[in-house]
């Protein structure tokens, strides 16, 4: 769901208020059955999906029905029959995703490399119907459906699943469009026993995460967004500034979304998985990947890396690289995403096979204080963000060339970069950067203090209220689209 779209909150209000009024009266008169809560949640989720995208809803509805029927069938069968059903469902789910997301890329960018004129004629024809316009949330709910099939196939509990429960599991409104990608073991039991739980504790908890999420998205990410200049390729300082701002923006944008989802789910008594665990505090790239987009990373680990590798653990390095490249490809059907995935895979391998001996050679603690490890990790992530944000390959090449040109780092270029902003623009940028630094510092502090949750300090009651106040005061006038909606 697009939480920065006013219509989301409006529809939530318009459906929620009458529904909860009826529910309250029904409960008071003791004529309200508990299972009606599940049906209410289902209607709410589906109506919000229709509001987000009517055309996509048709595809979504088809996939829900197809997956439910097939999983039900799979649970009744044993042995190869069950396996064949699982393989078919996964194959069709992935094929639908591939159709909308990758057909154009394969024809225009891959086939076009080898066969001349294909790209032009394909574009003239307008491609395959529907391809190119990615239905909102298709990547996320497809992954969740695929994981559900695998988990159900592996599960010892072969009890049939209820249709309403399945719809609620897949379409749960806080997380259907951009995750977190929930797993059967974590979310399904909560959905099966779902009752609206509007306790003071849930409200307080939900509000904390909601406040943090809204602040991250509307104040930090959206106010940084206008300063990211993709067109600039010549001035090295501006190129670095854009990379730095994008690195901050993508985190605040997506973590903001995830925390809003977490908060909304808490309001109704559901606990979602924490999708970001202060990734920019990581002192190593390995740790970064355990903290960044956790549910996607674990999805790729459990359904790609481990099954691909199987018992061939001596080939783990190769499969790790393949998995990261595939993860990049999932982010988008474009070369820059493939490069981004491969870059991270390669980074992990270079650190393992070259970094470790080097680290041993120079002396582990003497020359490599924690701060330096953190700075190198953050720098590596930043460079990766260049590949992520720049989809124009020509421009990407120009930017890389600028970054490695020593004389581009001149004072005259620095002066030109600084004078490219007006006094007001500069002041706003400094203020937002101050807030982002303070936010990240509080994450670091919680990690240093070994607190139970990395966001403990940011979720303290008084600070939550401050963040909510700052959101009202400083929210960007024109909210930018959630970056992960494009995937």
């Amino acid at each position: 769901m697009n939480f920065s779209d006013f219509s989301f909150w409006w529809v939530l209000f318009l459906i929620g208020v009458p529904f909860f009024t009826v529910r309250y009266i029904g409960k008071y008169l003791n004529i309200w059955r508990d299972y009606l809560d599940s049906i209410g949640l289902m209607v709410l989720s589906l109506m919000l999906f229709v509001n987000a995208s009517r055309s996509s809803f048709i595809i979504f509805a088809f996939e829900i029905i197809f997956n439910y029927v097939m999983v039900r069938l799979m649970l009744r069968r044993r042995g190869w029959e069950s396996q064949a059903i699982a393989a078919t469902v996964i194959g069709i789910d992935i094929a639908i995703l591939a159709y909308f997301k990758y057909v154009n890329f394969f024809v225009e960018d891959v086939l076009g490399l080898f066969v001349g004129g294909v790209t032009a004629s394909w574009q003239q024809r307008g491609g395959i119907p529907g391809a190119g316009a990615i239905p909102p949330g298709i990547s996320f709910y497809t992954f969740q459906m695929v994981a559900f099939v695998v988990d159900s196939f592996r599960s010892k509990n072969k009890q049939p699943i209820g249709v309403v429960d399945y719809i609620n599991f897949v379409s749960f409104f806080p997380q259907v469009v951009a995750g977190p990608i929930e797993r059967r073991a974590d979310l399904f039991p909560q959905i099966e026993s779902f009752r609206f739980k509007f306790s003071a504790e849930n409200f307080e908890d939900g509000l904390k995460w909601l406040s943090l999420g809204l602040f991250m998205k509307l104040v930090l990410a959206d106010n940084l967004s206008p300063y990211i200049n993709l067109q600039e390729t010549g001035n090295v300082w501006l190129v670095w500034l854009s990379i730095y701002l994008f690195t901050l923006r993508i985190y605040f944008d997506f973590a903001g979304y995830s925390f809003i989802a977490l908060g909304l789910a808490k309001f109704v008594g559901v606990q979602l998985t924490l999708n970001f665990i202060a990734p920019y505090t990581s002192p190593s790239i390995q740790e970064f990947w355990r903290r960044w987009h956790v549910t996607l990373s674990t999805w790729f680990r459990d359904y790609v890396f481990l099954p691909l590798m199987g018992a061939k653990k001596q080939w783990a390095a190769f499969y790790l690289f393949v998995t990261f490249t595939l993860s990049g490809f999932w982010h988008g059907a474009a070369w820059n995403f493939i490069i981004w995935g491969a870059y991270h895979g390669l980074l992990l391998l270079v650190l393992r096979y070259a970094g470790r001996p080097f680290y041993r050679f120079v002396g582990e603690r003497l020359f490599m204080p924690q701060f330096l490890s953190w700075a190198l990790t953050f720098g590596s992530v930043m460079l990766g963000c260049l590949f992520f944000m720049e989809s124009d390959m020509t421009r990407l090449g120009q930017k890389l060339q600028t970054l490695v040109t020593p004389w581009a780092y001149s004072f005259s270029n620095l002066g030109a970069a600084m004078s490219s902003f007006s006094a007001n623009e500069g002041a706003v940028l400094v203020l937002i950067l101050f807030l982002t630094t303070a936010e990240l510092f509080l994450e670091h502090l919680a990690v240093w203090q070994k607190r139970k949750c990395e966001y403990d300090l940011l979720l303290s009651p008084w600070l939550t209220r401050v963040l909510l106040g700052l959101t009202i005061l400083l929210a960007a006038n024109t909210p930018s689209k959630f970056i992960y909606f494009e995937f």
Partner: protein
Amino acid sequence: MQLQNSSSKPSEDLSKNNLQDENMIVENSPAEAIQSWLVTKLSKQLSLNAKTIDVREPLTRYGLDSIDAVTLVGDLEDWLGCELPSTLLWDYPTIEKSAEYLVKEFDVSAAVSSVASSNVKDASDDKTEKVEASSKSSGWGGLWNRISGS
């Protein structure tokens, strides 16, 4: 918690090199034995000083990556003689948590105690060898030591 401050110590160190008291192994709980095993393995795999490994720190802080995680679980399976989830060191990202989980969910006491008793035997043999060696060195060996200055 730094390992040197805790009661758990690398089992191999206990059994072979630094064993001061055989009873220490017998007194070690299965969780501590697993912690010790993991500390020893990790220190070898990542070329770290075992004393600097904190069992409550995330393993990634020591540079553990996905490849180490799967191979370490494989080694752990061989040691404990049971099938473990491949994602163990992701789901329980510290040595302390992993050991606690293994003790809680798997019957590891038999494997751990057999290793501990073999360690005791090794240590005992080691001690006997040392006694024999020292008795030898007190004879001709002792003379040789004095002559050679060693």
